[in-house]
């Protein structure tokens, strides 16, 4: 209040500050890209701790979606959270390509179920703790070990019969 610098701080910067104060290892990994867009990078070990704090203490209580991608050596998983539908915080973490697995967040966000199944199907990352259910979005007879969103997967590769439709 007394410091004019602090008063000028936007909500996004306050979030950045709170995160960096609370978790020292987050220094320099939280980026405010523009108003209402914050990106944070996390190592997988620290994920649970920060994620729980952000959701429970910082009111980022809605999940937009989960994005998974193949970034060459590792898989990148991004959790897009928002606060009152306004500020989107993207928490990025990575998973190694050897036996990739993440923990489910369905106990916190029940609607994460379908996004996690999507990551399971399309990237082949195991989601631990996800209850058994029907797969999404690939068909039931889709072969195992075929994960379309991996960069080395090509629709027409390895002699698969493709339908011209």
């Amino acid at each position, binding site marked *: 209040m007394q410091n004019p610098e602090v008063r000028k701080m936007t909500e996004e910067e306050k979030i950045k500050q709170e995160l960096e104060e609370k978790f020292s290892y987050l220094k320099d990994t939280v980026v405010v*890209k*523009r108003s*209402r*867009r914050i*990106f944070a990078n996390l190592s997988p070990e620290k994920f649970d701790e920060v994620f729980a704090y952000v959701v429970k203490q910082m009111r980022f*209580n*809605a*999940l*937009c*979606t989960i*994005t998974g*991608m193949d*970034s060459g050596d590792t898989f990148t998983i*991004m959790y*897009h959270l928002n606060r*009152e*539908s*306004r500020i*989107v915080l*993207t928490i990025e973490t990575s998973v190694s390509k050897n036996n990739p697995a993440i923990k489910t967040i369905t106990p916190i*966000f*029940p*609607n994460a*179920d*379908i*996004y996690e199944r999507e990551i399971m199907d*399309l990237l082949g990352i195991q989601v631990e703790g996800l209850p058994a259910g*029907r*797969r*999404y*979005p*690939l*068909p039931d*007879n*889709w*072969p195992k070990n075929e994960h*379309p*969103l991996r*960069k080395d*997967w090509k*629709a*027409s590769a390895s002699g*698969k*019969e*493709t*339908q011209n439709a």
Partner: protein
Amino acid sequence: MHDPRDVQVPIGPQHPALKEPESFLISLHGEKITDATIKLGYNHRGIEKGCEERSYIRDLYLVERICGICSHSHSTCFVQAVEEIAGLEIPPRAKYIRTLISELERIHSHLLWLGVAGHEVGFDTLLMYTWRDREVVMDVLALISGNRVNYSMNTIGGVRRDITPKQKEEVLKATGILEERTKYYIWLAQNESTLLERLSKVGTLSRDDAERLGAVGPTARASGIAHDVRKDDPYAAYAELDFKVITANQCDVYGRTLVRLGELMESYSMVRQIMQKLPDGPISIKAPRKIPAGQAVSRYEAPRGEDFHYVRSNGTDKPDRVKVRAPTLANIQAVAKMLEGGYLADLPIVIAAIDPCFSCTDRLISLRQTDAQSKNTATWESLRLKGIEWYKSKGIDFSSLNKKLAESL
């Protein structure tokens, strides 16, 4: 839990209640639904993968075809993300034109929804009337953009077509007609008792459940959650427009109807404001073919709710990852909750009430035929031949007639 006397009814993937392939397995106890399992994924077309393999310009048209109804939503959402990464600030006139198309699209989508809702409860006259009125806005969209559905108005760095004064007049005229009609539909929805009977207290979703299950758009707003990306996270020209976020507290299908009808009225007022404020100037700026490395999250209030795109670029002319989360995927998870304890007769309207768009939801498909399937798979050609043979066995031969027809066309 599972009662052996319950009947299992498959709704879909092919069923008259669903306009797109999706499957619901319903357990029925008499007419009551005891359990509903949802299976998605029939419409997966590989669009996210496809985007990674195409240039940004080509992606624009691919993304537009994620969904037929909210084509402008997806393309704007995508192009906003790309522009944010490239650091392009589009001209104000382009922003206004984008907003105009997006509001016209909302009008067309909500009118379409009202008709579908009427059809689902067996009120076909309402379907015919709303779809007749929808033609007015479709014509205006065709006039402005050159197409009725896939408007292709967006390009990276602006829009592709300008609005002439004559088009402006047409838009205002159409808005006037539609406003009158919408007032009538609001009156009808509030007074026609057979409609009220079928919509009230059906498919209830409490505010808590809506929040917990991540419902978005009119579905969430009808449960009293006043979230609207246009207000909360303004894009395009929305920050400069004056509009209300319509909510309802009924938490049922009736509430969702009122919210959509109320939004229609807001859209008409917004279209008028856009026409009044439309700034002069260029409609696009030149965009580079190669987009610098970066990432962006883009949100957009599609007619069905929040559309979410995440784009990551790697400095080439192709994106590294495009993630699309369509509003239906967020809402569909609430449907099982809404169906619980309801009647079979309410199933179509409950599903329709979230205004589902399954082709938005799924974006990738199996591109091949597996051998295990081929035994039961009938191809188009084999079915055609079977038909010809069957009619021949009845002594009817159409082949010469077909040949004649083929030549004439």
